[in-house]
C-alpha cells in the first residue's frame, strides 16, 4: 500500500465537520470523511451537492469555514505545501492550456513539479506513449477530443506519481468507450498504490470503481458504505417485471400498487416496470408477497414475460436515501407512485 513512499499509517483523508458557506448557501454542512490509504473512494452526489467544494478544501484551494481536515497527515490550512507536493488534482473540466501542445502542457507541469528539463521531457514522452497520444503530441490541445483531453489531463496529474489523486467527475459528458478507458486508468492508478478520491454523479461509476462510497446531498453525507451495503440499506430488493404487451402496463401497475408496499416505477422500456420492495417484518415473507402479486397479475389477465427479484440498483438506493434522483443524466422515466 505504501509503494509510493507514503509516510505514516494514518488515513489518507480525515475530515471532521467541514463547513463551507458561500453567501447564504451552506455548500458544506458538516462533512465527516475518512479515506483509507490505497483506497478508491467514491463521492457520489448530484450537481451542487458539495462534491467539488469538498475536493477544493482537501486540495488546499479553498479554506473551510468550520471543521478540520488532514490530508496524508497534514493540515489543509496550516500545512498546504506539504499536501500540494504529494497530491494531484484533476478538475471537473479538463484544465489544460488549449494554446499549448500536449507535449508542452506536460513539460510545463513537469518543470513546475520540480523535474529537470531532461526528466520532464522523458516523462512527457513516456506518458504520451502510455496514453496513446504520441501522434497528437505536437498539436495544440484546443483541437483534442474530449477523451484525449481527459487522458492528457490525467497524465498531467501523474507527472510525479501522487500519493493521493483527486478526480472530480472524470467521465462527465464522455462517450461510453472513453469512459471505460478512464475507468481502466483509474484501476491501474489505484493498483499502483495511489489513493483515489473520485467524485461522480454516475452511480454505475461509483459501483464500478469505488470500494467505499459516500453519498452526499445538500452539503451533508446522507449515507456511506460499500456499494452492497448501500443497496442493502434501501430495502429488501427490487421486483422487475417485463410484460408481453405494453398496452397492459397501466393495468399491471394498478395491480402491483394494490398488492405490494413500495413505489411502482415505470421503466424507460414501455414493457417494464419495477417495485422497490419495503422490507417486511419477516424477510422470509418477501417470496410469498411476490408470489401473491404474480397470482393477482394472472387474475387480471396481464401477460408477464419475465420476473426478476434483485438487489436495488445504486440509482434506486440514491433515490431512497435522498428522496430525489441522482441527476437528470441518469434518471429514467420514473414515476414514483407513492
Amino acid at each position: 500500500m505504501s509503494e509510493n513512499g507514503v509516510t505514516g499509517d494514518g488515513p489518507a483523508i480525515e475530515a471532521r465537520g467541514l463547513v463551507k458557506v458561500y453567501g447564504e448557501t451552506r455548500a458544506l454542512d458538516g462533512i465527516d470523511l475518512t479515506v483509507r490509504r490505497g483506497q478508491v473512494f467514491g463521492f457520489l452526489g448530484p450537481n451542487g451537492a458539495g462534491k467539488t467544494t469538498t475536493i477544493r478544501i482537501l486540495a488546499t484551494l479553498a479554506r473551510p469555514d468550520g471543521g478540520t481536515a488532514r490530508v496524508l497527515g497534514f493540515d489543509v490550512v496550516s500545512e498546504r505545501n506539504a499536501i500540494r507536493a504529494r497530491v494531484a488534482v484533476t478538475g471537473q473540466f479538463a484544465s489544460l492550456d488549449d494554446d499549448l501542445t500536449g507535449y508542452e502542457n506536460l513539460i510545463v507541469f513537469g518543470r513546475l513539479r520540480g523535474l529537470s528539463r531532461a526528466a520532464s521531457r522523458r516523462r512527457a514522452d513516456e506518458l504520451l506513449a502510455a496514453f496513446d497520444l504520441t501522434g497528437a503530441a505536437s498539436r495544440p490541445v484546443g483541437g483534442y477530443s474530449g477523451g484525449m483531453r481527459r487522458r492528457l489531463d490525467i497524465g498531467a496529474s501523474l507527472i510525479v506519481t501522487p500519493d493521493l489523486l483527486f478526480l472530480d467527475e472524470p467521465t462527465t459528458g464522455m462517450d461510453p468507450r472513453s469512459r471505460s478507458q478512464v475507468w481502466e486508468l483509474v484501476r491501474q492508478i489505484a493498483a499502483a498504490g495511489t489513493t483515489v478520491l473520485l467524485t461522480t454523479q454516475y452511480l454505475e461509476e461509483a459501483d464500478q470503481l469505488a470500494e467505499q462510497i459516500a453519498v452526499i446531498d445538500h452539503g451533508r453525507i446522507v449515507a456511506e458504505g460499500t456499494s452492497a451495503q448501500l443497496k442493502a440499506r434501501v430495502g429488501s430488493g427490487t421486483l422487475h417485471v417485463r410484460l408481453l404487451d405494453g398496452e397492459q402496463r397501466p393495468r399491471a401497475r394498478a395491480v402491483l400498487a394494490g398488492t405490494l408496499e413500495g413505489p411502482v416505477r415505470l421503466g424507460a422500456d414501455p414493457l417494464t416496470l419495477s417495485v422497490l420492495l419495503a422490507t417486511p417484518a419477516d424477510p422470509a415473507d418477501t417470496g410469498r408477497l411476490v408470489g401473491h402479486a404474480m397470482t393477482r397479475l394472472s387474475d387480471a389477465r396481464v401477460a408477464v414475460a419475465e420476473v426478476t427479484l434483485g438487489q436495488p440498483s445504486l440509482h434506486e438506493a440514491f433515490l431512497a436515501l435522498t428522496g430525489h434522483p441522482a441527476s437528470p443524466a441518469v434518471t429514467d422515466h420514473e414515476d414514483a407512485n407513492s
Partner: protein
Amino acid sequence: MSTPTATSRAVPEAHRLDGLLAPARPPRRAGALAASATFGWRAMLKIKHEPSQLTDVIAIPVVFTVLFTYIFGGAIGGTPGHYLKTLLPGTLVMGITACTMYGGARLAQDVTTGVFDRFRALPVWRGALVLGGLLGDAGRYLLAAAIVVILGVIIGYRPDGGAPGVIAAVALVIAFGLSLSWLWAAVALLVRAPATVMSLGLAVLLPPTFASNIFVQPRTMPGWLQAFVNVNPISHVADAARDLMNNTGGTGGPVTWSLIATAAITLVFAPLTLHLYSKQG
C-alpha cells in the same frame, strides 16, 4: 491491491501504465525562479502559437505614429519632422501602455478555464504565475517599442540621445508598463473574466492616454484638464522618454517622477495581486 492482477488483465484499448507509476521519489520543490521561468516560457509559447494576439501590439503604435505625424504633424508641430521629436517618444509610451491589459486578460482566462486552480494546487511560489506572465508582457512591450523606434527612424526621427538614450527610454517605459501589468493582474483576479478585463482596460487607459501630453502640449486645454494632464503619470513618462531619447535631460525631473510612479504602482498592486492569488476561495 497488488499490481500484477490489475495490470495483466486483458483490456481492449487499454492504456498500459506498467512501470510508469513506479515509486518516484518526489523531486525537490521547484524554486521560485525556475517556476517563474517556466511560466514565462509558457507565456512565450502562447504568443508563438497564437501570433494574431500581437495585432494590437503592432497596429496601435504604427497607426498612431503615422496618423498623427502626417495628419496633425504640420498643424501641431509646424512640420512633421519637428513634431516627431515630441510625438515619437509619446507613441512609445502609448504603444506600451495600451497593451498592458493583455497579460491581465490572459490571467483571467486561466482562471475561467480552471488551469489557474491547477497551478495554484502545485507546490510553487505563489508569485511565479504572475511573474512569468510579466515576462511574456515584457516580450510584448519590447516588440511594441522596437516597432515604434524603427518606424520613427524610417519616417525621419533622429534621436539626439543616440542608442543609449533610446535604450534607457525603452527600459523606463517597459518598467512603467510592467507596473501597470501588476495592476491588470490584480483586476483580473478580482473580475475573473477576460472580456471584462479587456473592456476595463480600454475604458481606463484610453482617456488618460489622450488626456496627457503625448500628442499635444496642454497649453490650449481648459484649466481643469491641464491640471489632470500635469499630474497624469503618462505625461511624466512621456516627458521622461523625450528627455532620454532627445537628450534634453536637464535636471532629469520627469525621469525621477516616472520612476516614482512606477515604483508606487508596483508597490500597491504587486502585493495586492499576490494576496488575491493565494486567497483561498
